[in-house]
């Protein structure tokens, strides 16, 4: 539980959004992905996405992506009003094809990473990150 007199209202709004929109994919997310892949099919091998299962703070969620040999990796927060988070481009001289950043999540949603691999194919990894108002553990 997470509420004090002062924060009840603000929380009420934030939490209501969480409940109304969990796991919903913003149509804009599909557009961002389609623009990146040109509508090509995506495999699931060759890309790693590391994100927490439950965010400690939805305003700054650490996310790490890695795709050996990739020329670019797209990071998408599918449930955010603006789903496109970042596109990392790797030149031929890049020592490794990985990146880490912190992103803000509007609520519980799938974070998706898509890599353009060396052979020109695309690979996708997805992870559900839960944004919760908190509980009371054992």
């Amino acid at each position, binding site marked *: *539980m997470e*509420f004090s007199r002062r924060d009840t209202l603000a929380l*009420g709004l934030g939490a209501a959004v*969480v409940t109304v929109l969990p796991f919903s994919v913003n149509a804009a997310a599909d557009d961002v992905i389609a623009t990146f892949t040109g509508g090509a099919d995506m495999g699931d091998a060759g890309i790693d996405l*590391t994100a927490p*299962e439950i965010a*400690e703070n939805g305003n700054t969620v650490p996310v790490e992506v890695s795709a050996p040999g990739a020329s670019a990796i797209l990071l998408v927060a599918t449930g955010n009003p603006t789903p496109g988070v970042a596109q990392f481009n790797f030149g031929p001289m890049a020592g490794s094809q990985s990146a880490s950043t912190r992103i803000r999540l509007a609520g519980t949603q799938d974070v998706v990473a898509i890599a353009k691999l060396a052979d020109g194919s695309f690979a996708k990894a997805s992870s559900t990150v839960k944004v919760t*108002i908190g509980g009371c553990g*054992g």
Partner: protein
Amino acid sequence: MISRRDFLQVSMAASAMVGASGFGNWSRLAAQQSLTQDQLLQFDIYGNVSLIHVTDIHGQLNPIYFREPSVNMGIGAANGQMPHITGADFRKAYGIADGSPSAYALTYDDFSALAQSYGRVGGLDRVSTVINSIRAERPDALLLDGGDTWHGSYTCYKTEGQDMVNVMNALKPDAMTFHWEFTLGSERVNQIVEELPFVALGQNIFDAEWDEPAELFKPYKFYETGGVKVAVIGQAFPYMPIANPGWMFPEYSFGIRDENMQKMVDEVRAKGAECVVVLSHNGFDVDKKMAGVVNGIDVILSGHTHDALPEPVLVGQTVIVASGSNGKFVSRVDLDIRDGKMMGYKHKLIPIFADVIAPDATVTKLIEEQRAPYKADLEEVIGHTDDDSLLYRRGNFNGTWDDLICDALMSEREADIAMSPGVRWGPSILPGQAITREDIFNVTSMSYGEAYRTEMTGEFIHVILEDVADNLFNPDPYYQQGGDMVRVGGLGYRIDVTKPQGDRITEMTLLKTGEKIDPSKTYTVAGWASVNEDTEGPQIWDVVENHIRKLGTISTVPNTSVQVEGI
């Protein structure tokens, strides 16, 4: 493969791991209706390594009563699996006779009557006797503390954990991991940890700013024991800043971090570990999932969800041991490690029957010293339970202790609805027993116990119930935080545990009028243990004390306000 009747030491095929549990030994005592310390401790030494596991003691220095849950649902793949079996089903699964010592220690039925026969459980002076006895056989046995140790009592609150530190140090643990300890605040935790005479472990304790391993807590430690190189990796409670107030320890970040766990397992194996033990505060279902994801762990000593299992659960080649809570049990696990492999194990969950196991006088004296300055306050009698009322906490949706706390909140803080956190710690009070101030602290003590009073819309109350329910009933264990459903007073509801978040809770009803909760209407709500900073209100133990004092005698009534579906 596991024999309950005997400590069979079956010869081992190279690929098949063989285990035995000491459970049958004390189960069989049922027929004799007698218990001795020798029987409780009987264990034919096995293999070359011994582990001793204690966890979730929650500040309980002295013997207490502790009733196990009547309702402990498993969701999805966990449905009907250990530890989500209770009562008669639990007894049947392990062949426990009704009314036996095992029935009393591990299940809830007839608790009040059996408690009269078998008495209190726990007490760190008794735990010390058990540890000493194991060390007499195997001097280099490893004592591993799963955490939730420096929290949960009057003296622990007043001394900011020092009472527990002093007494645990006398038991000489080899390593420890953490959860509620962090609610002492990071400054206090750092101060204690810096002076601990043993290692503080947590591969998932990170620096929040840099997302790098925290310096003060080590991911693992190597031990040479029985000629075997054993690595113990720590796993602190993953959801500390979410389930507890993160503002109290803003420098730290946690999470499951199973990819880092795999890295640590690989690292210790590469450094020559012949046996890998994880000292975990994940909770049982999270540990089960992690055992299937991370390769190369031999034993997980599991804590957090307070399950007491008389036999380990196997996931692949990983043995998971659950050792109960509140000082009620000690687990002994003997391992046969040869050629860098675990060839077999023998396990016993030792119930600490306080009237059977002799206290270690040195530790008894040390405990008395911790309590002496507070003796009068601890022992003051505030009220009594009547002859039919048992106060207990464990259960997914309610317990009579929480009913009483919710009543106290509604009455003392003049609220329509009360909310009380679904924690799993806190001993039981038998019918006709005096309730002391210490007893009230045992179920309420914490560093953020302010009892708030606020207004919430019906919609927001629904959001809270849905949010907490998903922390408990999400089918993926990695999204579960442990603990139980938030307890409510003055409010009834129906829950379908199989539905997704947002659809589980229906038919919310204000009990005092029988009206349905209106999403747009505002209700007065009192609660405690908010994770928000600057929460205002009197301490919950004062609220409960005032309420009990006014009532004098406590009578519990069956709570039918939550209707559960889907199981």
